[in-house]
């Protein structure tokens, strides 16, 4: 049988993932195991409830013990990804003051002062850049290098002729990532991806910009969600034409552009974030 809880230790916090139905039959050993970890250090503790289905009063009692222990050591207990039903349960039991909740792991870390508020920093941008290089290499045989990053004004035209756009949606922030290719670069990238030479744009290959964006987004999302960003799945779209823009709805807020040089020509990655 799968273990009902999993303890992961990080530098400044302890993450406990609960899953399934936590009841008296599977409570044994939980508190001791957590205290065993806490005997060596006194970090904040985060309980991830994403896969938690229900929790019994026995578990609540042990978690209260844990809360009191942490409080006596000036540390905090925080529940993340708690369902509405769980939050309501805490309120009914009158323990919502002790069992505070945050939407995501990242938010809990921000509240604990262990992470910065979301911004277009290297932690956020680099997964997109690394993923861009990896995706183009594996899927199209393109070797690309990132150039010097710069800020861009909202609603400025994109720099390429064909762009894949995907919205970045989380509980507390929105944004977008855009991969914009000049036509000549795009044709070479598509030729590499599909294994046949394309000399002009056509409907058959235009959605390739969306697919590339989708894969880059997917890879970056896995890395960022591992850090608690809570980015949701999204579908890409494609815009094309000279001096095209992406709607201001998608690209509001701070925006950066990273120019890339590659053996198929230059292209641009634009990342926008609106907190």
């Amino acid at each position, binding site marked *: 049988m799968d273990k009902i809880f999993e303890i992961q230790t990080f530098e400044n916090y302890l993450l406990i993932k609960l899953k399934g139905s936590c009841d008296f039959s599977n409570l044994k050993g939980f508190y001791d195991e957590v205290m065993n970890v806490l005997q060596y250090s006194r970090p904040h503790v985060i309980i991830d409830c994403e896969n938690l289905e229900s929790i019994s009063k026995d578990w609540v009692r042990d978690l209260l013990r844990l809360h009191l222990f942490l409080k006596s050591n000036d540390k905090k207990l925080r529940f993340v990804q708690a369902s509405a039903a769980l939050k309501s349960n805490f309120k009914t039991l009158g323990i919502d003051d002790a069992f505070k909740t945050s939407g995501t792991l990242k938010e809990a870390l921000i509240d604990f002062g262990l992470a910065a508020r979301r911004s277009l920093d290297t932690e956020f941008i680099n997964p997109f850049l690394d993923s861009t290089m990896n995706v183009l290499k594996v*899927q199209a045989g393109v070797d690309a290098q990132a150039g010097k990053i710069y800020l861009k004004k909202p609603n400025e035209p994109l720099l390429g002729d064909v762009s894949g756009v995907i919205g970045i949606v989380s509980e507390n922030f929105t944004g977008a990532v855009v991969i914009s290719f000049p036509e000549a670069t795009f044709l070479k990238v598509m030729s590499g991806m599909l294994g046949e030479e394309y000399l002009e744009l056509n409907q*058959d290959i235009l959605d390739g910009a*969306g*697919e590339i964006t989708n894969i880059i987004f997917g890879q970056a999302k*896995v890395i960022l969600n591992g850090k608690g960003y809570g980015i949701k799945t999204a*579908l890409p779209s494609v815009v094309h034409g000279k001096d095209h823009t992406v709607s201001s709805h998608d690209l509001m807020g701070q925006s950066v552009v990273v120019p890339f040089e590659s053996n198929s020509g230059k292209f641009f990655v634009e990342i926008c974030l609106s907190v």
Partner: protein
Amino acid sequence: MFNPNTPVLVVDDMSTMRKIVSKILRDLGFTNITEAADGNLAWEAISSAQAPIGLIISDWNMPNCTGLDLLRRVRADKSMGRIPFILVTAEAEQHQVAEAVKSGVDQYVVKPFSKDALQAKLEMVHKKYAA
């Protein structure tokens, strides 16, 4: 490896990705490849296929009917429940993989992928069903 005449259904809302998967399959010798642009169209193709579909390779993240929806629909059907099924995804987060395995996927391929990566997954799936 699968018999090259095995009818394969490739499902993806992006035509370029359907082309990529179909090209790899042709390079591997497959001759009977059908494409569908989402899970609903795939279900129609499976239901109306003259020769029963012997392998489904489906994207996960699609509008209308996702690859996971399609997988569950196939697995719930008496006559089609045992069709080998590979999911292709750009977002292999642990909980998603667990969900796919629980729903009866045979293998999943993470985008971006090479011909060798897809071939390796095909061989694993074939071995499983040949056993």
